[in-house]
């Protein structure tokens, strides 16, 4: 990026600060790509930042504070923990910086807009999907990211809700740190305990691929549903290793939130809630996704 | 007996006054009586049925060979260890100390054999550790008063140093004086000194002995442990000899002489205190020219020949240790030439020095000599490990064990357990292990810094024999020693240092102690100060 020293005295160039939960996964990288694309389209400066991990709540808050200091024209934030961001949003408001929420909503009255679908709904979609594939009463194992990570909490809760609504049960929920190797280990161990289960839901793709690998090694065929939709999992679906994943359209989240921010700065009206859509990607529609 | 820790420091201040008043009014003749003390360590009976009385205000010397159990005895006295058997009476009351705080509260303190200086604290803080003085207002530490008292105490011992510097800035000799000051300032009823003079030279010893007399006059008892029998005979009122953990006997000073003590200690008489080597002086082994180290060494030049022993004498802080370290590459030098067997060499590290055939026995065995947590085998073979290797890299364990066994027999290391962790050895035996380490290397030039520090009279002769053997086999040896008789007894030539310079050279045949002392004090009889 270029430094902005020279821009200081020039007529206000629009600067959008995008703060996401972290930038260490395909999902957020795609959000970043979408945001940057929107920036290019509208000719505004877009900086996408995120802390090291999705659980680094205070790190993210510092990032937002520093963007306020930098006097950005508008902020796009995907908050790691909804309630925690309210004080800093209030500070942004004092500095007259409009705030757009992306991916995760916050009950904060002064937000300009929310862009996304919500993790809960996406999780629910996954739960319902199992209902289409499995007979009533089947049991599902859930692998999740770090305990206490609100994103994963919502996905798990959504999934449980979805499962209930179609008459399926949760066999066990175990954390696998959003990581592939840990997912392999956990599934191996669950298999050892001879627990009955017919499918696995994981709250991100990495764990989904790990679970699929462990099942493949053990010679078991089961429905594994991941989350997010990385290139790796697309390939895994094509190869028949992964059954499906929940896709939240991260590119759109990034693009539309920046688009909304630009419009707000320019004084145009925008909607309070912009839905970016959620879908299940499986063998039936994987090819069109791959093309994209 | 529990001492409430919260107010202990304030108690101490009042305790000082109490002791001052009650100095003369004692209940009985004996301050302390020990009856049938036994102490067993895993595999070792350190003390068996030892009984001993300490009179008020007497100077009581403990003598015994290395590993006889002297240090263990005093550690039981101060509550570092607890006895397995026996009882202790302090001023007529049965006591049992669980830690040094409890013994201190009854007026007992000790200078332990292994220096217990805290390198990162200032001299003052070391002296007052555990007995700090506090201001009356907020109860914060009263540095002004403590610094003043510390300074005074050290001046009384004849040293003038900056008490607000950290202890790590001073060499062992000074550190020893700091520990002594620490004991003196405590104002207790019994001070135990476990080899307080092992790093001191004659001059400091005299000052210390004078101070001990002053203590006695104040009615303070002193237990004094030393392997230097002339000191013992100079100040002790009574002498107790311990052998193999058993008390052999206690005698009045008037009944004792050196020969008798030695006989009781080792069970035989020594024919010769300073045996001499038979070697002929050969080529120059080590030539040092204009060696300089900023602030420490000035223009040091000397030659050391094959088959020769040079002794280095000097007062504490004269720079002898610094010189040895500089030659050995342990510290950087700022100029000068070192030649070994006629070839100029660059020595940048101890590794280079060893490569060129040098060996350096350090004065601080605990900090620089031994790996205390490791056993005798590991320690004694560290420098010579390469020579036990098969195929260049793999150590032949059998060979190692055989060699170590041999060395342990030769040096009479006790207990003779090669797998014994060196931390558990008595001070003298630790010293022997360090010597073994350097015997194991194939050196031709040996620098021994205080080689007999803490070694008993019998073993000393063994060390001298060993040095002589090395010399007879063609080695060249430097001995740095603060014991004048030793330097004079075993070296062919004596170099004297003062403030980093060589101030005198003597042949051992014609020199007198006075001449050496004069050179050591720089010719004039001034109060030596920390440079």
């Amino acid at each position, binding site marked *: *990026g270029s*430094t902005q*020293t020279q821009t200081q005295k020039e007529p206000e160039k629009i600067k959008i*600060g995008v703060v996401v939960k*972290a*930038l*260490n996964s395909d999902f957020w990288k795609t959000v970043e790509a979408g945001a940057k694309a929107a920036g290019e389209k509208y000719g505004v400066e877009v*900086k*996408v*930042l*995120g802390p*090291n*991990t999705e*659980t680094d*709540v*205070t790190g993210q*808050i*510092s*990032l937002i504070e*520093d963007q306020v*200091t*930098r*006097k950005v024209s508008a902020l796009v934030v995907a908050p790691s*923990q909804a*309630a*925690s*961001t309210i*004080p800093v949003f209030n500070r942004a408001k004092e500095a007259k910086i409009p705030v757009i929420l992306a991916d995760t909503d916050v009950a904060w009255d002064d937000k300009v807009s929310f862009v996304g679908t919500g993790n809960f709904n996406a999780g629910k979609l996954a739960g319902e999907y199992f209902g289409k594939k499995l007979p009533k009463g089947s049991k599902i194992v859930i692998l999740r990211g770090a*305990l*206490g*990570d*609100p994103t994963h*909490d919502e996905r798990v809760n959504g999934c449980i809700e979805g499962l209930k609504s179609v008459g399926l049960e949760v066999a066990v929920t175990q954390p696998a740190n959003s990581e592939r190797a840990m997912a392999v280990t956990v599934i191996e161990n669950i298999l050892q305990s001879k627990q009955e289960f017919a499918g696995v839901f994981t709250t991100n793709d990495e764990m989904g691929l790990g679970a699929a690998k462990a099942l493949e090694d053990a010679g078991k065929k089961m429905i594994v549903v991941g989350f997010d939709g990385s290139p790796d999992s697309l390939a895994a679906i094509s190869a028949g290793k992964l059954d499906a994943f929940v896709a939240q359209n991260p590119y759109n989240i990034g693009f539309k939130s920046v688009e909304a921010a630009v419009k707000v700065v320019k004084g145009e009206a925008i909607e309070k809630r912009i839905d970016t859509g959620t879908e299940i990607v499986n063998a039936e529609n994987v090819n069109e996704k791959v093309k994209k | 007996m529990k001492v409430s*820790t919260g107010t202990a*420091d304030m108690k101490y201040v009042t305790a000082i006054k109490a002791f001052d008043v009650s100095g003369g009014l004692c209940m009985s003749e004996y301050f302390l009586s020990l009856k049938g003390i036994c102490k067993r360590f895993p595999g070792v009976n350190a003390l068996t049925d030892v009984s001993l009385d300490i009179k008020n205000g007497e100077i009581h010397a403990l003598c015994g060979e290395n590993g006889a159990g002297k240090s263990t005895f005093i550690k039981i006295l101060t509550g570092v260890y607890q006895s397995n058997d026996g009882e202790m009476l302090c001023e007529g009351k049965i006591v049992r100390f669980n*830690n*040094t705080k409890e013994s*201190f509260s009854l007026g007992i303190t000790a200078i*332990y054999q292994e220096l*217990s*200086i*805290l*390198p*990162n*604290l*200032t001299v003052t*803080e070391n002296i007052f*550790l*555990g007995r*700090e003085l*506090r201001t009356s207002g907020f*109860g*914060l*530490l009263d540095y002004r008063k403590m*610094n003043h008292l510390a300074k005074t105490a050290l001046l009384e011992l004849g040293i003038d140093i900056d008490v607000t*510097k*950290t202890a790590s*800035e001073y060499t062992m000799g000074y550190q020893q004086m700091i520990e002594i000051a620490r004991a003196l300032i405590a104002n207790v009823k019994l001070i135990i000194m476990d080899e307080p003079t092992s790093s001191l030279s004659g001059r400091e010893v005299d000052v210390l002995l004078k101070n001990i007399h002053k203590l006695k006059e104040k009615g303070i008892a002193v237990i004094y442990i030393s392997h230097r029998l002339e000191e013992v005979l100079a100040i002790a009122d009574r002498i107790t000899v311990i052998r193999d953990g058993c008390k052999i006997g206690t005698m009045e000073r008037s009944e004792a002489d050196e020969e008798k003590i030695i006989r009781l200690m080792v069970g035989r008489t020594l024919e010769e205190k300073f045996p001499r080597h038979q070697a002929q002086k050969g080529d120059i082994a080590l030539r040092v020219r204009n060696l300089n180290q900023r*602030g*420490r060494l000035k223009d040091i030049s000397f030659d050391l020949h094959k088959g020769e022993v040079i002794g280095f004498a000097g007062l504490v802080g004269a720079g002898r240790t610094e010189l040895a370290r500089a030659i050995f590459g342990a510290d950087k030098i700022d100029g000068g030439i070192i030649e070994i067997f006629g070839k100029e060499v660059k020595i940048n590290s101890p590794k280079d020095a060893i490569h060129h055939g040098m060996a350096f026995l350090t004065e601080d065995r605990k900090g620089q000599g031994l790996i205390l947590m490791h056993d005798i085998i590991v320690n004694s073979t560290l420098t010579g490990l390469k020579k036990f290797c098969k195929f260049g890299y793999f150590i032949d364990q059998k060979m190692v064990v055989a060699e170590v066994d041999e060395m342990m027999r030769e040096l009479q290391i006790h207990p003779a357990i090669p797998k014994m962790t060196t931390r558990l050895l008595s001070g003298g035996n630790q010293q022997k292990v360090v010597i073994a380490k350097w015997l194991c290397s194939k050196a031709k030039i040996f620098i021994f810094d205080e080689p007999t520090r803490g070694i008993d009279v019998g073993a000393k002769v063994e060390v001298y024999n060993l040095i002589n053997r090395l010399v007879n086999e063609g080695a060249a040896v430097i001995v740095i020693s603060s014991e004048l008789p030793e330097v004079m007894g075993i070296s062919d030539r004596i170099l004297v240092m003062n403030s980093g310079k060589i101030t005198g050279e003597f042949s051992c045949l014609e020199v007198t102690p006075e001449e050496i002392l004069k050179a050591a004090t720089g010719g004039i009889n001034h109060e030596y100060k920390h440079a």
Partner: protein
Amino acid sequence: MNTSTPEVQGHGGTQKTQFRQLIKKMGSLIGLIGLSLILTFASPYFLTMDNIMNVARQSAINSLIAIGMLLAILTAGIDLSVGSILALSTVMMGIVVVKMGMSPIIGVAVCLGIGLLLGWLNGMMLTKMSLPHPFISTLGTMNVARGLALIVTAASPISNFPTSIQFLGAAFIGPIPVSFILVLVVYAAFHVFLNYTTVGRYIYAVGGNPEATRLSGISIDRVLIIVYTISGLMAALGGLVLVGRVNSAYPLAGLGYEFDAIAACIIGGASFMGGEGTVWGTLIGSMIMAVLRNGLNLLSVSAEMQTVAIGIVIILAVYIDVLRHKAAARVKA
């Protein structure tokens, strides 16, 4: 490992000593000033009153935790449990205040009390169970406290604390954040504690040579228990500030904070071998970390590059200190 140059430990001594002490403190200060200068040139937003207060606020939590950590490091120990203690103490406060509706005073007492208790447990386990190193006891506590924080909250955050509790973390006095004032007060108190009280000096002594300390009649166990208790308390205090800052308590709070706290101490000149380190050095160490993060954020450096940059700066900051020590040693000789 490396024998460092002998240096005078803090406390008012002669003038010469005080000057040397100043120089010693200056060590990490040079790093901090250098870093600030670079950032001032690189970003127009860096040297603004607003941003300085920003940094002060952002560094507060780590500063509070680091000063407790310093005590552990001075005794040649470590406290890995600070992050988890922070989490458990704050969520318990959340339960008491928000869920059970008790008074904020009770809440704060619960928060600090739990910090105290867990720290004390760390110390007791270390000493009374003779565990070989605080790494073990505090690693255990780190896991147990984190697990408990997750259990009691059912893994979800607790929000909407009364403003009185948020005071420490969120309020300002004029332009100055209360949390930073708190840090200054706490650091001054620790300066007095470490240099002018017996227990403070014993902490240095234990780190310098535990055996000699014991022979001086000082109870090492007692000193260690005090050290870990204080460290736990400071973690809880850091938690109080955090709650004010984010208006919520959550079970994953403080994850990885132990690293930042340790880094602050070490950048500030403390030694892992024990017995060496100062209060003000630690503050500067903590400020360096905060300034660095802040600067990189202002420059909108990407997260990956930030990680790389932080790694490099940690090494450089310490290296500057090493060079300065060497230079000082040369001057003295």
